[in-house]
């Protein structure tokens, strides 16, 4: 999951990252194919050489050897101005249009599970050019209808983001799970299968998706992680298994 996501981040681009796995993935990209990936944190860290996993997207690791220790106003303005290529998020629920829920499970007034809320997720999903989502795939998480729409994907379909007032040519790009990689259909803006991870069957994908996923005639297998990528993850980036478990 982490390796596949890391390969989506091109060298020389900028990524705005959320807590946890997205940070590890960005660190992995920087140590492999994308040494000049510009990582931006919402508390104001711009372009750090992240030395160890930050516990918070605002802690001192996010400004370590950075090009700038700015403010939230500054980095959010950068995103609104168009400087940020990727927004990198996790979520508790996702729907067919890539809309995300990180606010609550159950009704808002009496939640069964209260989650942290938007944080910077709504801002990243609104303002970055391409949103990448990293999450587990099962029918409780890949749902027909979200309990709460925290962060905009393609909302209700083609043209909906623009109609709502969100910046042109933005929206979800890829969704990476433990089972495969999903993208979005150009015409309908609905989620579409891109590749299946090695050892995963088409049935696994379908059984773990709570909405109708577009499945093209030919679906390739995701390229397996390399030994070097696995070594970096296990030995250098997260030796204490804080994120990867």
């Amino acid at each position: 999951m982490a390796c596949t996501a890391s390969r989506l981040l091109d060298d020389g681009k900028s990524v705005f990252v959320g807590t946890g796995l997205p940070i590890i993935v960005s660190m992995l990209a920087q140590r492999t194919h994308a040494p000049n990936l510009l990582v931006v944190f919402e508390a104001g860290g711009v372009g750090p050489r992240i030395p160890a996993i930050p516990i918070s997207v605002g802690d001192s690791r996010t400004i370590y050897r950075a090009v700038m220790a700015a403010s939230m106003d500054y980095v959010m303005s950068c995103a609104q101005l168009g400087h940020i290529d990727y927004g990198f998020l996790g979520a508790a629920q996702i729907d067919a249009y890539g809309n995300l829920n990180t606010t609550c499970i159950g009704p808002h007034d009496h939640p069964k599970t209260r989650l942290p809320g938007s944080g910077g997720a709504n801002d990243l999903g609104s303002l970055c050019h391409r949103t990448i989502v990293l999450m587990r795939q099962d029918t409780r998480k890949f749902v027909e209808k979200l309990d709460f729409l925290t962060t905009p994907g393609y909302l209700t379909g083609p043209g909906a983001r623009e109609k709502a007032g969100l910046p042109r040519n933005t929206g979800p790009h890829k969704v990476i799970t433990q089972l495969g990689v999903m993208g979005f259909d150009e015409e309908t803006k609905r989620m579409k299968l891109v590749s299946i991870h090695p050892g995963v069957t088409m049935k696994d994908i379908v059984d773990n998706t709570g909405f109708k996923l577009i499945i093209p005639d030919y679906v390739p297998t995701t390229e397996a992680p390399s030994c070097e990528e696995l070594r970096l993850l296990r030995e250098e980036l997260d030796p204490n298994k804080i994120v990867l478990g």
Partner: protein
Amino acid sequence: MLLQRRLRRVPSLKVLDEGQGELHAWMDPDDARAWMTEKKSRQLNDKVVPIREAVTRFTYDGGYLAMGGFGHIRVSMAGIYEMIRQKRRNLVIAGKTAVHDVDILIASDVVDRVECAYAFGHELRGLSPAGRRAVEGGKVKVVAELSNAAFQWRFKAAAMGLPWLPARVMMGTDTFRYSSAKIVEDPYTRNPICLIPACYPDFAFIHVHRCDKYGNAQIDGAVIEDRELAMAAKRLIITTEKIVSEEEIRVAPDRTVIPFFMVDAVCEVPYGSHPGNMPLLYYSDEEHMAEWLSLSRTEEGVKTYLEKYVYPVEGFDEYITLVGGEKKMEYLRKLERLEVPLSAPWAKR
């Protein structure tokens, strides 16, 4: 004149949608100007007071509180513990990346309402047992939702003396629906744009690296949203790692984030962000965080924690001794400098 105006078609701003969340801490900009003019002094006054006195004088039950920093980064724990000891009640808190701050304030019954961009979570450490329990059980109410950018732009609007700021976030989502923002048709582009209402907190605490006795405060590392929050707050209490001379501030004025005339009180509290991180000085105390996260799973545990570390403790130096003293702080300094590996007991599965 009147006739001319009637003949010219004057377009009005079209409101397209309104969030249904409660609007807290908003003020008419003229009222805000009147407050700043009357209640904030442009005179250089010595504002150094013990934290106990600052909390007694400038905080009150039912008020709207904002904490500077980032929830567990450069957060004024001394201010938080003192509000708990003085049994402040029914506060509304700005849940702007609220982490350990909101968690312990909820657990100790100080806060009962949250305006939420981020709360009830401990970032990489997982969800907050105490915060979640309180919301899911109905003890704490979420009065509105919004995003992090929207929250800091609420402070920025206030800092600019404006009623609102336009922004291109939240539109199309339930986050907007539960917020106190409005969407209008922008008269320039004719596209929808979100108006983020100003937020003037009744009182705020900001923990800084150094500050003189007048309140000229300097922060190292990311300032997060504290430049704006300091200007927006109706009452501002600065807690500082150390009080320095006015000259030390004046030789590096470019480092000053908060000038004295925004500040109501200055309290010297070394290690005042513990167990949170103080960038470039000491890292967060993950052993202590693990103890809190484990104890706060039950009401009993919360009581145990508060009786051990908060209620009977006289000053912050006594608290630092309780959590491991200089030896612990030396370890946290080394951790900050990346000289020792991080141990995170909460990550053990």
